[in-house]
């Protein structure tokens, strides 16, 4: 879908997903790394637990379909090469500290005259300006500062981040969306621009319930463990332990809720464990008028019921009864999902250097007209130096070799 466009991707783990999505959608994405390799190559897990820059599964996961070149941005000769590449590019994605590229003389505002149509995205923890711009961060810090950690976890234990680096992938996909928004603007005006993305702000954007709850009620939405609140701050459990794992069931009210609660109650009756749920008129039950005491009594009985069944039994029985219940899927469950296989979601990529294939998450959406998804494994350090420097800057193989020896690339 994006085959006409060329992207220079200088980002570390904070922005890897952005270039990957553009590459998987067809753009020519050139990953520019220092000669020692991108810092994210140090992130695990590693292939067969063998730690090395070429074995990072984290790197592999987020650099599919890209070509890779090396360039030491801190050398003057390299900066000439970078200026040359800028002329051929539509997008730049970088995640350096706010003043890093400016000090090298190769920041957006120093280069934009070279290519006025260029769209340049900077991904930083807090944004390129403002009082926190130089604060040190990591995913854990932006999860905390953006508000997600406060509402995640058990009420009697410390707040939690979401697993893996979700603030980076969230900022990454916001970056792609922003790049294409700027492309729409460029299509209309022929002008490029700079985009300043804050990871903290991306996380703050997700606080859709906490924000109006504070604004209208002056209440800080609390951590509720596995519970949700369905009106008047009565907490109701969403994740239930069953025989062989966990399931999710939302204790919602209204029309859907009546069917769900009714189905659950009749099932508990069949199993002989209905307890306190007996005789409730679910059609008129209003979740906003329940007391915590009432909910706690029901939940004690429900907990016993769920432990009688496996995930699959509960899913199948729920489907028959029109209930919205689903098992909590582990990584193996997800990779073995019949549903995802039926949709041909997974993509097996060739790793000839490892003499095997590895299975990757595939497309971002399905389309009746266009196809996309990971096309090739992540590049090795400098793998496409000769090819890219020849194609973009007309350098010969000999020139590339000599630049390599000078430590430029």
């Amino acid at each position: 879908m994006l085959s006409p466009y060329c992207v220079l991707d200088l980002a570390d783990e904070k922005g890897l997903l952005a270039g990957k999505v553009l590459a998987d959608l067809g753009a020519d994405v050139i990953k520019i790394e220092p000669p020692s390799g991108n810092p994210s190559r140090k992130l695990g897990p590693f292939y067969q637990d063998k730690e090395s820059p070429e074995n990072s599964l984290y790197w592999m996961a987020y650099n599919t379909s890209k070509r890779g070149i090396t360039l030491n941005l801190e050398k003057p000769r390299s900066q000439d090469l970078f200026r040359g590449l800028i002329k051929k590019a539509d997008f730049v994605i970088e995640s350096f500290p706010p003043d890093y590229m400016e000090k090298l003389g190769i920041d957006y505002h120093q280069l934009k005259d070279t290519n006025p149509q260029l769209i340049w995205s900077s991904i930083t923890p807090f944004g390129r300006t403002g009082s926190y711009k130089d604060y040190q961060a990591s995913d854990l810090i932006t999860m905390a500062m953006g508000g997600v950690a406060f509402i995640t976890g058990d009420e009697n234990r410390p707040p939690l981040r979401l697993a893996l680096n979700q603030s980076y992938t969230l900022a990454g996909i916001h970056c792609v969306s922003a790049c294409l928004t700027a492309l729409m603007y460029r299509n209309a005006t022929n002008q490029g621009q700079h985009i300043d993305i804050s990871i903290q702000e991306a996380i703050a954007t997700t606080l859709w319930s906490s924000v109006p709850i504070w604004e209208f009620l002056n209440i800080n939405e609390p951590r509720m463990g596995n519970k949700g609140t369905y009106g008047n701050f009565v907490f109701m459990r969403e994740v239930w332990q069953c025989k062989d794992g966990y399931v999710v069931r939302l204790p919602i009210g209204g029309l859907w809720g009546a069917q769900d609660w009714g189905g659950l109650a009749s099932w508990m009756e069949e199993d002989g464990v209905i307890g306190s749920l007996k005789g409730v008129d679910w059609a008129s039950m209003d979740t906003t008028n329940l007391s915590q005491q009432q909910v706690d009594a029901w939940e004690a009985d429900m907990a016993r019921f769920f432990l009688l069944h496996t995930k699959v039994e509960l899913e199948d029985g729920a489907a028959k009864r029109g209930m919205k219940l689903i098992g909590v899927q582990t990584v193996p469950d997800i990779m073995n999902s019949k549903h995802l296989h039926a949709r041909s979601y997974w993509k097996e990529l060739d790793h000839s250097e490892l003499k095997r294939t590895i299975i990757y998450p595939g497309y971002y959406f399905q389309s009746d007209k266009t196809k996309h998804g990971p096309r090739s494994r992540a590049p090795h350090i400098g793998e496409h130096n000769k090819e890219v420097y020849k194609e973009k800057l007309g350098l010969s193989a000999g020139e590339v070799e000599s630049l390599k020896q000078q430590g430029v690339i």
Partner: protein
Amino acid sequence: MTTLLPLEGVKVVDLTWVAFGPWVTKYLADHGAEVIKIESTTRPDIIRLSPPYKDNKAHPDRAGLFTVFNSSKRSLTLNLKNPKGLELLKKLVKWADVVVENMGVGAMKNLGLDYEQLVKLKPDIIMVSMSILGQSGPLSFFQGFGPHGAALSGVYALTGWPDGEPTSNTLAWPDCVCPWYATTAIMAALDYKRRSGKGQFIDISQVETTIHGFAPAMLRYSANDQVTNRMGNRCDEAAPHGIFRCQGFDRWCAIAIRDDAQWKALCEAIGKREWASKFATLKQRKANEDIIEKAIDEWTAPQMAEDVMKKLQSIGVPAGVVQNAENLFADPQLKHRDHFPKLDHPVMGKTTHPSWPAKFSASPAQLKPAPALGQDNEYVCTKILELSDQEFIELVNSGVLE
């Protein structure tokens, strides 16, 4: 003077509701698209009927959650059970470039508005269907919400304490992630149409998009046969890496040590200078994480979270207050970026309509208040569909616009 917005001239028929669908069309509208949100007075978007309400008065135009997801749109109420209502919707499809929906799988077909039918009305239409699991496949019948998507994509299984349960929260993480894959798909499709003249049908799933955030765990299972499990706040690449108790009720500070220099600085700060060499390597710190975390906790507990953050940041150590909603509204950095603009809502008055994490140098987003239910009926009928005043009045009188 208003600057040109990136999506100016893009026309969108918005059949989304609740959260993750409306978020997509909010993005398009805030960046210049003309978005017509279609509801009915008998079945408004259910998020209009969800608390909290402004001044605690339950009313479809006073729901805070609706303002979060619906700025800059126009609102049209249409009775789709009335054949004339359906006819008006089809006219809007002819006008539109993009139709977005997140109804249950099959609902558009039941209305006679599936892609096959839309193409007959507008050959180059871009139709986007958003759902939990996609439009096809054995589980596509499952009509759930974001928390179901979170259970299906690994968010819950992987988030939590190693000795605890899978952990949910109110965000429904896929609701917060999938929309930006959808805006990406829509703009890529618009550019593809500009170049090829062709529209397309896009089927986007919460689960399939959210899994990309867990790709390293998927590759690890595929390549190493290893299953990634819950790790609390810890991770393999950095230690210590946790959230520590501070002074006051439910006050905390996150600290993440990513290299040896940061470790050395932290050891100085917490008065454990000898640990700089004793636990010099990541491996040593991982092996002694329990006692290191205990010492940090003892150091942070009597201090204000803000002081811990400032002290550590001043010596180059990554640290951040675990901010609650109140803190976010007061956060100087989010203020600097104008993240919570207050717009003059037609019913609620000055109300927060959250902005976006990407700031554009040439074409910044321009947010307008979320619409009251049906507030643009006349505009849509007379200005967009170019009906006469008489025709509009007849539609009103015959209950089509309800």
